[in-house]
């Protein structure tokens, strides 16, 4: 058995009189969810969070590696202290010997930790003062007048007398701490749906200010996702204004979606910050709540035996999402080939964030490689010099015409749209003295004939 006691950053006031354990505080809950990433056996005991990691040692590479990792990751998860012992009560008692975390301490400070190996458990507990165990703390004044100041003194008293004079519960707690009786706890279970709320100490005036709190909630989400083996597809950030009670305002919310299920909190935080940066709050915010609205089971890759090349950087879908959020989804585009004969309808551009279109690309006729690589979205009408079209100088026709007559159906639907016409065109390859090879066409349909620039051989 390896019990690890973790101290949350703001320990709630221990209420020794309460017989029913109070519901875990939000800090405890966050820490417990995080601890679930290391062991399925996590419980909340008084002011601390305890996890039994005996079965997880091999997975994390041994006790030393696990403890090192816990110490490294504890501060961002909201913990301020760590104690290791063979029994839960001993770990808790040890945790109480740690110096209290000062409120102004930065998160980067070294986490205080204390550890007790199994063979030294009795000696170590014997030396602890009575106040370290909740069960003995209640009787500490009486015991002190008897001359008992440490747990060792108490244990040296005759058991029958102690049981009669104080209570059987005291002996029971003592035995549990020394590992002479089994310990029974109620393990923490994760809720089916993730929803976490955070109240700010002050009023948040700007939208970006919510990001700090949202990051803490995202960390809880990370723990939840890790323990549930899931990835998140959509999250919703709700915020509460203080004027809502008067009915003047509605609480706001923000939906963030990702293209593929992710557990990457930094990516979610970046997406949130991009969204929040464009938001103006109508009133100060008092609290936020983060819901995971859509999750799915996430297949994670197992670690490789061979050292492989670590690829730095972010994957393409994440990049597309971030660009789409900042610039707008309609400006990060991926092309799709369409089967059409009119050059400007041979392709369609869709937001890349919508994912790849799975339709089969149309077969490309051979002559398409003679088309120019650049094309004008709206053909440019060319000025004329007599009967010769001009584009940075008079054009010299090199080849053509290639006659095109297509698109009658567009007349039926959206004839008014720009450039939509019955395409009756003769295409030529032309050379301009300045602009090089051009792809131009002559309009043959109704009205006066006119020349247009369609593409450039760039």
């Amino acid at each position, binding site marked *: 058995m390896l019990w690890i006691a973790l101290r949350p950053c703001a320990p709630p006031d221990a209420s020794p009189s309460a017989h029913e354990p109070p519901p875990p505080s939000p800090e405890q809950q966050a820490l417990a969810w995080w601890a679930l990433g290391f062991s399925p056996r996590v419980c909340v005991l008084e002011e601390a969070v305890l996890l039994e990691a005996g079965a997880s040692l091999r997975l994390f590479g041994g006790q030393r590696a696990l403890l090192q990792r816990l110490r490294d990751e504890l501060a961002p998860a909201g913990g301020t202290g760590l104690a290791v012992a063979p029994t839960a009560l001993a770990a808790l008692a040890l945790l109480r010997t740690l110096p209290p975390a000062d409120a102004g301490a930065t998160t980067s400070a070294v986490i205080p930790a204390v550890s007790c190996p199994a063979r030294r458990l009795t000696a170590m507990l014997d030396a602890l003062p009575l106040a370290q165990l909740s069960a003995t703390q209640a009787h500490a004044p009486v015991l002190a007048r008897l001359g008992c100041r440490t747990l060792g003194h108490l244990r040296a008293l005759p058991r029958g007398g102690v049981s009669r004079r104080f209570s059987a519960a005291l002996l029971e707690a003592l035995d549990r701490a020394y590992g002479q009786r089994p310990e029974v706890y109620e393990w923490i279970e994760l809720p089916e749906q993730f929803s976490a709320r955070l109240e700010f100490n002050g009023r948040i005036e700007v939208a970006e200010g919510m990001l700090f709190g949202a990051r803490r909630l995202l960390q809880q989400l990370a723990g939840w996702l890790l323990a549930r083996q899931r990835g998140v597809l959509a999250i919703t950030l709700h915020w509460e204004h203080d004027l809502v009670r008067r009915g003047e305002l509605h609480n706001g919310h923000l939906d963030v979606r990702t293209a593929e299920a992710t557990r990457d909190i930094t990516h979610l935080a970046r997406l949130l910050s991009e969204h929040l940066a464009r938001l103006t709050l109508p009133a100060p915010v008092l609290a936020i709540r983060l819901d995971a609205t859509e999750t799915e089971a996430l297949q994670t890759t197992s670690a490789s035996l061979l050292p492989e090349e670590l690829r730095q950087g972010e994957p393409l879908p994440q990049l597309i999402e971030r660009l789409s959020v900042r610039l707008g989804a309609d400006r990060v*585009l991926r092309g799709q080939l369409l089967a059409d004969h009119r050059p400007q309808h041979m392709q369609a551009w869709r937001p890349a964030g919508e994912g790849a279109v799975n339709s089969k690309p149309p077969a490309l006729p051979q002559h398409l490689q003679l088309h120019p690589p650049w094309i004008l979205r709206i053909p440019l009408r060319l000025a004329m010099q007599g009967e010769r079209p001009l584009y940075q100088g008079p054009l010299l026709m090199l080849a053509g015409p290639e006659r095109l007559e297509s698109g009658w159906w567009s007349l039926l639907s959206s004839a008014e749209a720009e450039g939509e016409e019955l395409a009756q065109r003769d295409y030529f390859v032309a050379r301009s003295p300045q602009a090089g090879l051009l792809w131009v066409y002559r309009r043959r349909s109704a009205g006066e004939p006119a020349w247009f620039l369609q593409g450039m051989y760039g």
Partner: protein
Amino acid sequence: MSAALRLVLPAHSPDELAGVWRADQLQQVPQAVLSSGHAELDAELPGGGWPLGQLTEVLQLQSGQHEWRLLLPALKCAVAQGPLVLIGAPLLPHLPALAAAGIPAAQLLRIDARTPAERLWATEQVLRCRDLGALLAWLPQARPEQLRRLQLASTTTQALVFAFRPEAARHESSPAPLRLTLRTAPDEQGLSVELLKRRGPVIDRPLTIAAPLPVMAALRKRRPLKDPGHAVDRPATLRPARRQPVSA
């Protein structure tokens, strides 16, 4: 005396040191390159091709001219590794023609960033992507310090990175290890490439590269276009036009 000197001097000649090359030689330090597909150009580029993970600056008189002719052979290889990203392209890429030339439409990403700040931001973000194959960015108003940022960001990738800028910028200092100007060759057929800066000796004559597009071969051979297109009301042939202006 000379024996004593030999004792004092290190045994290595400068040629054997990594990262040191003589000014009259091309840099032979192994660096990741991708062949440009033009033999004349490869012979003059350090390492024998376009550098990967380095910013290459292409200066043009007019944007939209000759980019594809110069880069298509290399881009064809690069899109096998990852997507080709265009930022602030002056014109719309014609996907069917590019697909026929070997760049699949699904591998092309167009970012329509308009302001200079947006373009720089998007370029830097794209350079952080680990899947990137090639990046073409049109940055007409970038300042040297901004280009330095991009050059630093480029070194984290293994992609082709090209920045297109106006030729007026040739006298500005630039952190790009490779700079070149791109023009039409005097014979109006090929490309004229002047290497303004490279890791190697100064080269003062412009290189002429054929870099033909398929349409040029067709023009030269004057062979008929085989087009079975059913929307064409008569067989389309690519025949020589009259030298006279074509009457409407």
